[in-house]
């Protein structure tokens, strides 16, 4: 060890530590406040759209959407409002059979894959990569899961589920890994390659499950759909009627994935490498980290989350794969908005996924009263809000600016007083 003759070390003044600490808090505050403001902004502009298209009070439309999400089930009382003051309070407790409970189950069923595709985008983000390929990785996972769910029908339940999910996860990882490999070896940009892989997945999937495809159900000649997975491959439903799409244990798998995501990033050398490369690839390389390998691994892990999402939807409630689903699925793309709004942070991703899951359920034609909002428009509202979120997330600089301007104004006023 070298001798360190420190030049008369003076004690670090207390206020210096205070500054660093306060700055940290400020940033963290900005980290929670900006997504909230982003969401509020998106809903505000969505409200203008509602008013312009239906000439109805956006608040009552949002109330109807909220009631459709089932989130109102969480509160044991309901309140009737007249403008701004309550007129009646009803106690109804927690009735598992209520419509709200069913709606909440639907919301959480959709939230589950959104958490995972959100993680798929977020993990790549942390390595400095933009994974647009969540949709393709989801599709590859779904196709793989359904095939393994159809095969091995005699297997004991839990084993069969684990097998199908593992294979789907690996398939998603391999699919996204291609983009990582191309980036690491020839420098192909991941945005381009993942978009291309989305289309490849879509058309391979369409061929497999479509008319005359090798996976099409031979008993259903008239429908482009696979055989249903074996009973043993279905996920256990723990809330609500199993026959009517109750909530399956996939929800907990998604929650566990959030924990795994955080642990990998914060507590493993792999996560250290991924974050180092994401923040400063040049410094990582100098530090002895293989940047190319990190790209491949980060993309593979991202793809694993998305592939898992595909398998959970298939084994949890869809049970067979339909050509229309292959061609119109949006879960991977909504994952981008989830990751952006959730700021690549496990808590944020959970709530962002819940928000979009709730919106999708709340605006579905089944739940939204046609007299409140035309059903043809209802689904679009989710997309509008999704688009606005993506738009505004890029503008968090603006939000911070407004925030600081307010503070400055306050200071100026204080100054003016004496």
């Amino acid at each position, binding site marked *: *060890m*070298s*001798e*360190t*003759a*420190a*030049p*008369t*070390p003076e004690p*670090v003044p207390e*206020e*210096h*530590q*205070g*500054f*660093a600490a*306060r*700055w940290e808090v400020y940033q963290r505050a900005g980290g929670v406040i900006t997504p909230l403001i982003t969401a509020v902004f998106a809903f505000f502009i969505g409200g203008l759209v509602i008013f312009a298209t239906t000439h109805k009070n956006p608040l009552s439309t949002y109330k109807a959407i909220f009631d459709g999400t089932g989130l109102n089930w969480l509160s044991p009382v309901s309140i009737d409002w007249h403008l701004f003051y309550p007129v009646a309070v009803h106690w109804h407790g927690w009735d598992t059979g209520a419509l709200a409970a069913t709606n909440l189950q639907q919301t959480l069923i959709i939230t589950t894959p959104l958490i995972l595709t959100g993680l798929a985008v977020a993990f790549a983000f942390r390595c400095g990569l933009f994974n647009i390929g969540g949709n393709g990785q989801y599709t590859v996972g779904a196709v793989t899961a359904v095939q393994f769910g159809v095969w091995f029908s005699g297997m004991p339940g839990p084993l069969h589920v684990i097998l199908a999910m593992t294979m789907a996860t690996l398939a998603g990882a391999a699919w996204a890994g291609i983009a990582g490999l191309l980036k690491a070896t020839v420098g192909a940009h991941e945005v381009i390659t993942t978009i291309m892989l989305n289309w490849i997945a879509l058309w391979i999937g369409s061929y497999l499950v479509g008319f005359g495809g090798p996976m099409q159900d031979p008993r259903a000649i008239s429908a482009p759909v696979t055989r249903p997975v074996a009973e043993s491959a279905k996920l256990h439903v723990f809330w609500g009627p199993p026959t009517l799409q109750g909530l399956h244990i996939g929800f907990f798998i998604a929650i566990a994935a959030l924990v795994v995501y955080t642990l990998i990033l*914060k*507590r*493993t*050398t*792999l*996560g*250290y490498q991924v*974050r*180092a490369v994401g*923040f*400063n690839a*040049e*410094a*990582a*390389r*100098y*530090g*002895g*980290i*293989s940047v190319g390998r990190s790209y491949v691994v980060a993309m593979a892990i991202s793809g694993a989350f998305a592939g898992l999402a595909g398998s959970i939807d298939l084994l949890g409630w869809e049970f067979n794969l339909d050509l229309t689903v292959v061609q119109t699925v949006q879960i991977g793309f909504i994952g981008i908005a989830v990751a952006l709004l959730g700021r690549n942070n496990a808590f944020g991703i959970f709530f962002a996924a819940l928000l979009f899951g709730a919106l999708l359920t709340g605006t579905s034609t089944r739940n939204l009263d046609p007299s409140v909002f035309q059903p043809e428009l209802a689904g679009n509202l989710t997309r509008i809000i999704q688009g606005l979120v993506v738009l505004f997330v890029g503008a968090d600089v603006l939000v911070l600016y407004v925030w600081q301007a307010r503070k*400055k104004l306050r200071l100026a006023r204080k100054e003016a007083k004496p």
Partner: protein
Amino acid sequence: MAPDERPVLELRGMTKRFPGIVANDHIDFDLGRGEVHALLGENGAGKSTLMNVLYGLYHPDEGEIRIKGEPVRINSPKDAIERGIGMVHQHFMLIPVMTVAENIVLASEPTRAGVLLDYGAARKRVTELSRTFNFAIDPDARIDEITVGQQQRVEILKALYRGADILILDEPTAVLTPQEARELFDILKTLIREGMSVIFITHKLHEVLEIADRITVLRRGKRIDTVQRAGATEQGLARLMVGREVLLRVEKASPEPGEPLLRVEDLGVLDDRQLEAVRGVSFEVRAGEIVGIAGVDGNGQSELIEALSGLRRAAAGRIWIGDRDVTRSGTHAILDLGLGHIPEDRQRRGLVLDFTLAENLALHDFDRPPNSRFGWLFPARLVRWARTLLQKYDVRGGGPQAKASELSGGNQQKVVLAREIGRDPQVLIAAQPTRGLDVGAIEFVHRQLVAARDQGAAVLLISLELEEILSLSDRILVLYEGRIVAEYGPEATEDQLGMAMTGVDAKDAA
């Protein structure tokens, strides 16, 4: 060069507070017509804050600004420009793909028919200005085609074009070669003859003594003193700046070289454009000695360093560390063999600015016990190790959990040093280890390098600062166009090195 009786600019009791810190504490400052007034201080002393307040980028909490005797409020750079204040920042704000003339007139372009840029008029105006002040500059050259020194002149012209008569230069020589710095000083002298006033922010003592009429020294946000150039000495200014006696030249015992630990034989390295940047270089560095490599920037230093540290493949030749041939080894393997590397650019390569100090200090060893086991990381151990190192290397401005970006440049460099020297390297490559640092920090870095040498490390010092090479090296090699053209002992003179560095044959010159 007697300044006018009435100052063109006066700052009275300027105070600027940031949360938890007083960046400027009741600072008084004035500037006479035709004067160069240097603002001297260590990094973080409050020089830039004061000037940013003057330029309208920050709002002062207290204090008064008077321009030509008249109290003014400056709320934005636009106000400052209207009052005749121009600022040349350390990092230029030019558009690389546009011409010199286009850049200069930007934001106040002469127009035709209200919307079209009148390029002819712009060009003419720029040519006139550049002739008046003796700037040798081609108005039609594109910014990305001219040298850094010329880009800086464009920035100065930009300020003059907007009517500035008070010019603030923020660390203007940090990016310049010694020749370019000399040219800048000539330009400043012309400006002053034309009645301009200049505020010159720096932490380099010899520059202050060369160019300034008066010198104001700041330390920790306070004005310590304002002195006339006449009678000022480097030693005295350093004491004012740092607040204690500073050794400007590091003291070291004579070397006791041992075994060669780094050997390079006939090394050839290609640059990014696949051109030969290093051509057949051979040398060795022994345990317990510091070998300095002098040279003008861009003569193969970067490529040499990258080849030695495994970041770039050698095209020809061999490299040994100890008795291991590492010519084909990767960075990770070379680090394992005990290479310490203080990189040229600490922000681009040396640190992950968004990482905490603890994470940064583990950059090479995060994947080894006790930091991790079987891929599982132990953040608490990183923090504990970091706490020891931060204390030992006197890093200030934040604990192990602070982000590297929160520290000043000097403290960031101390973190790099702590990491590289803290792992007891056999071979230590120090590339421009004091770039952008102030006197106190330079002294610290130099002592650390000598201490590493005395512990038996083979130290290779690559620097553009001749003074640094001369004060630290036990042997000096001169790199010119990718070749080692001369070797000197520590008794070499700056003139000798300077000649060799520009390719004049050493034997002819001697």
